[in-house]
């Protein structure tokens, strides 16, 4: 068990976000829906690039 005594921290927010998404999504107009997908793809790509840059940086600085 982790020192906190909670198996995974922050999942309560994830459950809320997941169920909330299904409610919000029903009220979203078609154009808004398309934009949301584009934003999600852009964010995911940015995170991926960010993670690669971080790993390269940490390998160079923290391990030396």
């Amino acid at each position, binding site marked *: *068990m*982790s*020192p*906190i*005594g*909670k*198996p*995974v*921290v*922050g*999942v*309560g*927010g*994830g*459950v*809320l*976000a*997941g*169920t*909330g*998404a*299904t409610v*919000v*999504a029903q009220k*979203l107009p078609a154009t808004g*829906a*398309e934009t*949301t*997908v584009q*934003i*999600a*793809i852009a*964010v*995911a790509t940015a*995170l*991926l690039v*960010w*993670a690669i840059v*971080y*790993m390269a*940086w*940490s390998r160079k600085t*923290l391990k030396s």
Partner: protein
Amino acid sequence: MIKLKPTRIHKRKMALLIPARDEELFLARTVNLAVRAGQKRRDIYIVDDASTDATRQIALEVLCPEQVLHVEHSGKAKALKQLLDQFEITKRYRWVHIADADSVFGTDYFRIFRKALNKKYIAATGYIQSLPGDYVSRYRVYEYAWGMEIIRRFQNLFGVIPVIPGPTSCFRSDIIEKLDFGANTLTEDFDLTLQIHRQKLGRIQFIPKAKTFTQDPKNFHDFRKQINRWYRGLFVSLRRHRIGTKAQKIDIYISYLLIQAFLYCFTQLVYIPAMAFLFGQPYWIALAFLGDLLILLAITVWAALLNRRPDIVAAFPLFYLLRWTYMLVLLKAFIEVIILKRYINDSPGWETRGRRYQLLPGAVERSTT
């Protein structure tokens, strides 16, 4: 006839016990930091569990021979029990504090801890923080901030602290005899805490001002190994103590935590994709992903501000990966232990060789002052 007054033995307040196996890298530093944090050197004891490195010599350099015990390889909990018996610790002290051999105590940790100890409680635990390191340590800053500031306070309020963690665990000496240190478990701290709840020995005190720092895994491989051990130990202890089968508060609380974790998996992996497919609306997945990410980012920024560690935000994209690793390892351990009934009688393993690593320069100073 002369009536003799019963002899009153003066007990010192608190002993610090450090179990060690192959801890040559940090043992001397841990003892010196404990002294700096307010623990008298004469009240510190080390049990060396058949180390294969210089642990024993180092222990004898920093403490007197009467404070160091060398035992055959027996595992952390059993080694501690031998130390307690050999030096009659419970007869000589009112409280017994146990700490890991790589602990880094905050400047006034023991002064604060001793002052706050209240005999109406039967055990006590302090506040854990992560030492600076790579992305796993950065993730743990987020995790411990949320865990200690919000979750631990809630657990404390309702008397459901489910684990007295290894780096900061203190027991009232009169309950030590009631605890089974010999139980085969992968996570002895969790098992001991469940014993306290099951036997209804009393409440656990949370001392948030007593801060101690812990070294987190160096890389993803060590992280995965660590959480594999945690979750297998979690389910083994849940089985052993039949958590979820009684109407105790701890049963309700731990069941709630597990349901919440599995519900997260279900919403993210099954419910949202299924709903998106059924209603022909793929953007539901995008919306759920963005919402989850936004909450994670908000907590990360809050944790960075709280700990004055803006550097943790740099590793944010990897937090998502680590959280999913937690989830998948939790599911795997559930299948292994609860369904396949494996690891149930596994002996405790606490090999530290190769797990400990040199900290970043200035990490201890920056954290503790």
